[in-house]
């Protein structure tokens, strides 16, 4: 069941969505059992930014019908902290997981986000220097520092950014597309024209929730904080919807993108079972990422890969 992806040979087509599985924390919680049954054939880091971020104020989660909204705010140690502290630990986990399966280390994909082509270039250039990193994923769901528009939402801007960043690395470059745009296939094509080796989708759909209003009944917000005055629940105001609620949207967007680009596509969005992964593969996805389902079961990736 091995899969070729941008020159990497993966044991199966199931990887994790960025920011949905902290392998370092999981190693502490589950010990060596994590390595023995590592759920992903490649491991994608959470989003790394140039400077450290603490993330959004609580509350950060809201459960919806068949899914959840998260408003985490990309907490991370920043590029320097990631390369110095997290990457060596991830490499050790990747080697241990590979060993347990009698193979090479699980390839590490580092996801980075920046507010300009220059910032992204710095991030990608630093990743290029590190042998532990097999591939780089660009999170382009970030407002451009100059235009205020999400970099990934505008095909013209996206192509410019990708082509600039492309020069910084010979490693496979994946562009994680945003679904919050008028024409995701046009953005995928722009990424391809800019020199991307692959695209991944879908990221979460922008969403929000109101704090419950019945007094005393369910937890509500009554602290006078920013969320309360607007009646919004999430500390960050809005967030991203994930889970099975968005699976049909993912299927449509992956299909549309596969029809427009020749580079490989990583499909994701609400995958809970092997059948759901098979759906995305059937419409043309090379790899399938599991995200929210790992929250419900850390071994979901293994179960889904096994059933393919």
């Amino acid at each position: 069941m091995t899969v070729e992806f941008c020159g990497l040979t993966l044991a199966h087509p199931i990887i994790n969505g960025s920011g949905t599985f902290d392998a370092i924390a999981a190693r502490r919680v589950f010990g060596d059992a994590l390595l023995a049954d590592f759920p992903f054939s490649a491991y994608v880091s959470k989003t790394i930014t140039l400077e450290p971020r603490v993330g959004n104020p609580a509350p950060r989660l809201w459960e919806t019908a068949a899914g959840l909204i998260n408003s985490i705010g990309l907490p991370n140690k920043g590029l320097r902290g990631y390369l110095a502290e997290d990457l060596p630990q991830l490499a050790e986990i990747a080697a241990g997981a590979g060993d347990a399966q009698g193979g090479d280390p699980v390839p590490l994909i580092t996801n980075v986000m920046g507010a300009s082509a220059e910032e992204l270039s710095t991030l990608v250039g630093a990743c290029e220097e590190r042998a532990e990193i097999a591939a780089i994923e660009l999170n382009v769901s970030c407002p451009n520092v100059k235009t205020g528009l999400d970099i990934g939402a505008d095909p013209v801007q996206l192509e410019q950014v990708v082509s600039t960043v492309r020069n910084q690395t010979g490693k496979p470059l994946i562009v994680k597309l945003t679904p919050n745009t008028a024409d995701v296939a046009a953005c995928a094509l722009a990424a391809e024209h800019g020199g991307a080796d692959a695209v991944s989708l879908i990221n979460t759909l922008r969403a929000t929730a109101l704090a419950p209003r019945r007094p005393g009944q369910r937890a509500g917000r009554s602290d006078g904080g920013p969320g309360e005055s607007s009646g919004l629940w999430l500390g960050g105001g809005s967030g991203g919807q994930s889970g099975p609620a968005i699976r049909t949207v993912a299927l449509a967007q992956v299909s549309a993108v596969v029809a427009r680009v020749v580079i490989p596509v990583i499909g994701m969005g609400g995958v809970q079972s092997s059948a759901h992964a098979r759906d995305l593969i059937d419409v043309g996805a090379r790899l399938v990422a599991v995200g929210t389902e790992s929250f419900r079961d850390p071994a979901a990736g293994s179960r889904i890969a096994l059933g393919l």
Partner: protein
Amino acid sequence: MSEAPFGRRLATVTGVDELGVYRVLRVAEQVMPQSGWQAGELQPGQFAMLAAVERWGGGEGERPYLPRAFSIARRTDREAHFLLEDVGPGTQRLCELRAGDQLWLLAPLGRGFIPPRDGRRALLVGGGVGIAPLAILQDTLAAGVGQGHGPASEATVLLGFRDSSRAPGAALLEGAQVATDDGSVGYHGLVTELLAAEIDRDPHAVVYACGPAGMLEGVRALCERTGTPAQLALEAGMACGYGACFGCVVPKRGGGYLRVCVDGPVIDAAELEHVDSHAGAPA
């Protein structure tokens, strides 16, 4: 502290006991170690993520979807116990379970309580459904007496409840002093008032607390004033329970956030500037 097996696993409900509005869900359990203070033992204060196998979803708002976090309230030879109160679609569904029904279980998770040093008296302070981890703490402290490795310290139990429909929860622990908000059972007032009197009586005592955010903030502020060491078991809405989602954060003293699931749920009160109610999420 005990590591968890990787992946959720099936568990079977062996029975449900009623304690006023609360339910004690008893689950057959052969995997988790017994509780204790040694490496590899189940640490009091560790927790589990639970979901019903059947009909998880389709309740209020077409929820629940995510598993729910519960303190392990007791570990017997063959069972793990959890204390439930129906406060939302997840807890409602779990309260419906009966002997023979199946659960998804991911456990044990998180960091639990650290035992008192030097034989200091332990003051166990609980509020509402938050009394759960204090039961296994009391069991473990009692078992450690005279064992050489465990702390040979006495435990005093102070529990607060809203009203007489909840006060029966006190039966989960032995020898508890009870306070109720409405005065219908025991002391009329806040459990933190009982705690203040106990700290006055024994300034060398150490505090172990779990309950609603307002109560924990009261405990934290009191212990800060009196210089009493306190370990607080926090509650937060979680998606995963094992550090993946970064959803269950509380602000840390000096800036930044702690993840309740992997940095806690038991957190030294000195690490918190205040106990924040924002980590709450639908139950």
